[in-house]
C-alpha cells in the first residue's frame, strides 16, 4: 500500500515537470514567481485541472516513467510494461475538446458582442490599472458555453498572463488523520481561499516592484469558488468575495456557472443569485453569457469535421447542435463520440430522420390521440446531447396555457379518416411534447403537480366557461382519489408495493395533466400570469395547528367525550357569543374559564391569511412562465 502511494506521488510530480517542459519558455518564470506565494496558488499559470488529467493520459514519455518505476519495484515494472504495451498498441487520439480548444478570439463561438465587452473591459483595466476600484468582472452562464475559453483566448491575445485560482484537492479523511498526526493543522478550503483573497490585495501591490523585469500584465481568474456548506460558511465566502471586489488591484475575473434549479435544489440557486448580486453591488461588472446558438455550434462542428476529415452528414451535425442545449463542450464530445463509429450512428440517425419525416403529417393530425407513439420517436436524441430538463414552473406553464396548433383543412381530413370522434371530444393537437414526457423532464412529482394545477388552473379558464371549469376540477378530483389510493395499496411484498405506488402516482399526475389539457376547451388568450404556490398547503398547515391547539384545550374545557367536529361546529361559536356577551358587561363572570378566542379574528372569526410571503418565492420564476 505504502509503495503504491509513493508511486502515485512520483508520477504526479513527474507529470508536472513534463508538462512544464512541454509547455515551453514563458511559463517557467511563472512557476518561480509563484514560489514566494502561498501554497494555495501553486497552480498559477497552468492549465486547469481537467486538462491536466487529460494531459497525463496522452503524455508522450511513458517509457521514462516506466524505467523509474522499475528501479522502485520489479513487480511493478512488469505490470507497467504490460500496461504500457497495451497502451502503445492502441490508436490514441487527443480529445477533440482539447485539440480544438479556441486559441484565438476569432475561433470563439461566443457571441462577438460579449467577447468585445470583455476585451474592452480587460484592455481598460490593463492599461490604467492603478488606483481604481471595480476591478472585478463577473461572468455568469450555464456550463460549457465558453466562459473560461473566452477569457483565455482574450488573455492570450492581449499577451496577458492568466493566474488561476484552483480549489485545492479535497482532503480525504485518512489524509486528514495522517496530517493531524504530524501535528499540522487542518486548513479548510474556504480558509485557504480567504488567505488567497487577502494575498491578492497585497501581492498586486508588491508584485510589479519586486519583479520589475516582467512587463506581462496579469489577470486573475477565479473559476471555481470553494463549496460552502451551511449558513456560516456561506457568509464567510460572501465576505471573502466582498473584500476581493473591493481590494483587488489586478483585474480579476470570477466565473460562476449557473445551475438549473433541478440539479441542486432550490436553496443553492438562490445562493448563487445572492453571490452574484453581492458582487454586483460591490462594483463588479457582470457579463451574462447566453447559451450558444445552434448555428455557431454548427460552424464549430463543421470546422472540426473538415479538419478531421470525418465523413458525417450535415444532418448529424445539425442534430447534435440542436440537442446539446447550447453547451459546446458537450456538443464536441458527442460529435467525437459519433465519429468513432460513424456507420452505425449514421444509419440510426438517418432512419429516424426518415421516419420522422414520413410520420410528421400523420402525427400532426392525430397527435392528440396517438401521442403515446411519439414517446419513442427519435432515438438518436438520447444517444447524443444532453437530456433536456425543464423547471417545474416551465412545465406547469405549458400545461396551463394549453397552446394548441391551428388546424388546417388537410389535417382535419386525415383526422376524420383515422378515427371519428364525437365533436365535443375533439381537441386540436397539442403544441408540445407528450404531457407525460414534459412531466418527466420537469421531474414533476404527482402530488405537487396536482396541487399546483389545482391552485392555478382557474385563472386560465376563460370567463364564461363554467362547464370547462367543472370538467377540469372533476379530473383533478379523480387524480386526488388516485393519489389517495396509492397511499392505501397494500401488497404482499415491499418491492411490489413500491412499484405500484409509483405507477399509480404517475397515473394520477397524468390524469391531472391531461384532464387540465382536455377540460379547458377554450383557454384564455395568453397573457401574463403568475403561478402561485398552492394556498392549500398553507391552509392544511393552519388547520393542523388549529387542531392541535384545540386538542390541547379540549380535555380541560369540554371533557373527553366531545368530538372535534362538535366542538368546532357547536361549542366554539356559542362560547364565542357567550363570552363576547361577558366582555360587554352583561354576564356575571360565570364563564371565566372558557377561553376567549374572538379577539384576534376578523368579522366571522376567520383569520385572513396573507399569502404574500410565499408569493415572493415564486416571483423569481414568473418570467419563465410568461409565454409558452
Amino acid at each position, binding site marked *: 500500500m505504502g509503495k503504491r502511494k509513493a508511486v502515485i506521488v512520483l508520477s504526479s510530480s513527474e507529470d508536472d515537470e513534463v508538462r512544464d517542459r512541454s509547455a515551453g519558455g514563458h511559463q517557467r518564470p511563472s512557476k518561480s514567481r509563484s514560489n514566494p506565494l502561498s501554497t494555495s496558488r501553486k497552480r498559477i499559470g497552468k492549465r486547469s485541472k481537467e486538462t491536466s488529467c487529460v494531459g497525463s493520459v496522452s503524455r508522450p514519455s511513458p517509457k521514462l516513467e516506466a524505467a523509474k518505476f522499475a528501479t522502485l519495484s520489479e513487480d511493478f515494472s512488469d505490470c507497467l510494461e504490460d500496461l504500457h504495451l497495451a497502451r502503445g498498441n492502441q490508436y490514441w487520439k487527443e480529445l477533440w475538446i482539447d485539440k480544438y480548444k479556441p486559441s484565438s478570439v476569432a475561433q470563439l463561438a461566443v457571441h462577438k458582442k460579449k467577447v468585445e465587452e470583455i476585451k474592452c473591459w480587460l484592455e481598460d483595466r490593463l492599461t490604467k490599472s492603478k488606483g481604481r476600484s471595480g476591478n472585478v468582472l463577473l461572468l455568469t452562464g450555464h456550463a460549457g458555453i465558453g466562459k473560461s475559453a473566452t477569457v483565455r483566448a482574450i488573455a492570450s491575445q492581449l499577451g496577458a498572463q492568466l493566474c488561476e485560482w484552483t480549489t485545492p484537492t479535497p482532503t480525504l479523511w485518512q489524509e486528514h488523520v495522517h496530517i493531524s498526526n504530524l501535528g499540522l493543522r487542518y486548513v479548510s478550503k474556504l480558509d485557504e481561499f480567504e488567505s488567497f483573497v487577502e494575498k491578492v490585495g497585497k501581492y498586486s501591490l508588491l508584485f510589479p516592484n519586486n519583479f520589475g523585469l516582467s512587463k506581462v500584465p496579469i489577470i486573475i481568474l477565479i473559476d471555481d469558488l470553494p463549496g460552502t456548506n451551511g449558513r456560516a460558511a456561506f457568509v464567510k465566502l460572501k465576505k471573502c468575495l466582498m473584500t476581493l471586489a473591493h481590494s483587488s488591484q489586478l483585474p480579476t475575473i470570477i466565473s460562476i456557472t449557473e445551475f438549473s434549479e433541478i440539479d441542486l435544489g432550490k436553496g443553492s440557486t438562490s445562493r448563487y443569485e445572492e453571490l452574484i448580486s453581492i458582487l454586483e453591488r460591490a462594483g463588479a461588472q457582470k457579463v451574462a453569457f447566453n447559451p450558444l446558438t445552434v448555428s455557431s455550434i454548427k460552424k464549430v462542428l463543421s470546422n472540426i469535421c473538415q479538419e478531421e476529415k470525418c465523413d458525417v452528414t450535415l444532418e448529424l451535425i445539425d442534430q447534435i447542435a440542436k440537442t446539446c442545449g447550447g453547451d459546446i463542450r458537450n456538443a464536441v464530445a458527442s460529435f467525437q463520440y459519433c465519429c468513432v463509429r460513424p456507420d452505425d450512428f449514421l444509419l440510426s440517425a438517418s432512419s429516424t430522420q426518415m421516419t420522422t419525416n414520413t410520420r410528421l403529417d400523420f402525427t400532426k393530425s392525430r397527435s392528440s390521440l396517438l401521442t403515446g407513439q411519439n414517446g419513442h420517436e427519435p432515438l438518436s436524441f438520447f444517444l447524443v446531447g444532453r437530456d433536456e430538463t425543464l423547471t417545474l414552473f416551465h412545465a406547469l406553464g405549458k400545461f396551463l396555457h394549453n397552446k394548441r396548433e391551428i388546424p388546417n383543412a388537410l389535417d382535419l381530413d386525415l383526422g376524420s379518416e383515422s378515427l371519428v370522434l364525437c365533436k365535443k371530444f375533439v381537441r386540436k393537437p397539442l403544441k408540445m411534447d407528450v404531457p407525460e414526457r414534459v412531466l418527466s423532464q420537469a421531474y414533476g412529482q404527482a402530488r405537487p403537480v396536482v396541487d399546483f394545477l389545482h391552485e392555478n388552473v382557474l385563472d386560465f379558464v376563460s*370567463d*364564461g366557461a*363554467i362547464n370547462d371549469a367543472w370538467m377540469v376540477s372533476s379530473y383533478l378530483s379523480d387524480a386526488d382519489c388516485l393519489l389517495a389510493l396509492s397511499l392505501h395499496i397494500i401488497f404482499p411484498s415491499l418491492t411490489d408495493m413500491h412499484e405500484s405506488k409509483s405507477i399509480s402516482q404517475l397515473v394520477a399526475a397524468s390524469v391531472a395533466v391531461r384532464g387540465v389539457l382536455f377540460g379547458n376547451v377554450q383557454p384564455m388568450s395568453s397573457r401574463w400570469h403568475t403561478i402561485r404556490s398552492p394556498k392549500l398547503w398553507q391552509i392544511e398547515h393552519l388547520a393542523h395547528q388549529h387542531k392541535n391547539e384545540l386538542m390541547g384545550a379540549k380535555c380541560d374545557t369540554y371533557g373527553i367525550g*366531545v368530538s372535534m367536529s362538535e366542538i368546532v361546529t357547536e361549542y366554539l*361559536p356559542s362560547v364565542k357569543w*357567550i363570552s363576547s356577551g361577558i366582555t360587554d358587561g352583561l354576564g356575571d363572570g360565570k364563564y371565566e374559564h372558557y377561553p376567549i378566542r374572538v379577539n384576534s379574528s376578523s368579522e*366571522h372569526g*376567520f383569520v385572513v*391569511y396573507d399569502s404574500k410571503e410565499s408569493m415572493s418565492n415564486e416571483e423569481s420564476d414568473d418570467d419563465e412562465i410568461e409565454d409558452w
Partner: protein
Amino acid sequence: MLWVDKYRPRTLDKMFVHEEIAQNLKKLVAEQDCPHLLFYGPPGAGKKTLIMALLREMFGPAAEKVKLEQKTWKIDAGTRTIELELAMLASTHHVELNPSDAGFQDRYIVQEIIKEMAKNRPIDSKGKKGFKVLVLNEVDKLSKEAQHSLRRTMEKYSASCRLVLCCNSSSRVTEAVRSRCLNVRLNAPTVEQIIEVLELIGKKESLQLPPGFAARIAAQSNRSMRRAILSFETCRVQQYPFTVNQAVPAMDWEQYVSEIASDIMKEQSPKRLFQVRGKVYELLANCIPPEVILKKLLLELLKKLDSELKHEICHWAAYYEHRMRLGQKSIFHIEAFVAKFMSIYKAFLIETFG
C-alpha cells in the same frame, strides 16, 4: 358552567328524553348482568348523558369523581416501542377515552388499555371481583384494524371489563363488534321534547319566555338538544329580556356557508369558483369538517333551488361526498361539486330565461 352541562340529567330516572330506554337500562344494571353496550345516534341525542347516568346507576356517586389524566402509553410493537400520549378521564370504576385521537396508531391504544385494565381488577366491598367499565367515544372513527383488535380483546377480557361504545353511525362499526354488543339506538329528540326542555330551563333560570320563542330555537336546532340549549343561552347573553321576534343567532360558520351559497347562486363563472374556494379554505383552516361543509352547503343551495334540479344536485353532492372519502384533499371534491352545480344551474338559467 354552560347550561348544557348545568342542566344535564344526572340519573337515569331524571332523563327528559329516552325515558323508556333509561328504564330498561336500569333494570339491566339491577340484574347485575351488564353486557357490552353500543350507543349510537345523531349528535345531540343524549348518548353522553345516558352513559354518564348509567355509570352513576352502576357505581353510585363515585363514578362522578373523575380525574383527567394525560397518560403516556409505552407499547411494545415487535421491533420497536411506540410512545403514545392520550388524555383519559378516569374514576375508580371507569375509564373514558377517545381512542381515535391517537390517529393511525389507535389499535395499539385499544389493546393496551384493555389489557392493563384487565390486570388490575377492582374488588368490591363484598370481596367479589367486580369489573371496570371502559367508555370509548367515537368508535366509528376507529380504523378497521383497531376495530378488529377491539373485537379480540373484547372477548378475551370480557370477564374483567365491560365496554361502552359510543358513536354517531353504527354503519361504520364492524359487524363483529356490533354483534358482540347490545345495540342501543338513540333517536334525536323531537321538537316538542326540545321545547319542553327549553321551557324547563327557562323556568329554572327564572326567565320570561315570550310565546313561540322556544319553538323557534327548537326549529333551528336541527333536533339537537345540545345545539338548542347552546343557542338558547346565546340568546340570553345577547339580549334579555327576550323580545318576541328576537333573532336566534346562527353559528358563524353556518352563516358563512350560506353566504357562499348565495355567492354561487349569484354568479357562475370560474372567477367566482375561485372566490368560493378561498372561502371554503377559511372554513377548512378553522377545522370545520369538510363533510359538514358539503352537507350544509347542499342544504343551503337546495333552499334556493328550483325543484326540478334538486334531484340532480343531490346526486352530485352524494357523488362528491363519496369521492371525498376516497380521496385525500377534500377541497378538490368540494370544488368539483361547486363547479358542477354552477354548470348545471347556468345551463338551467339559460334554458328557462334564454
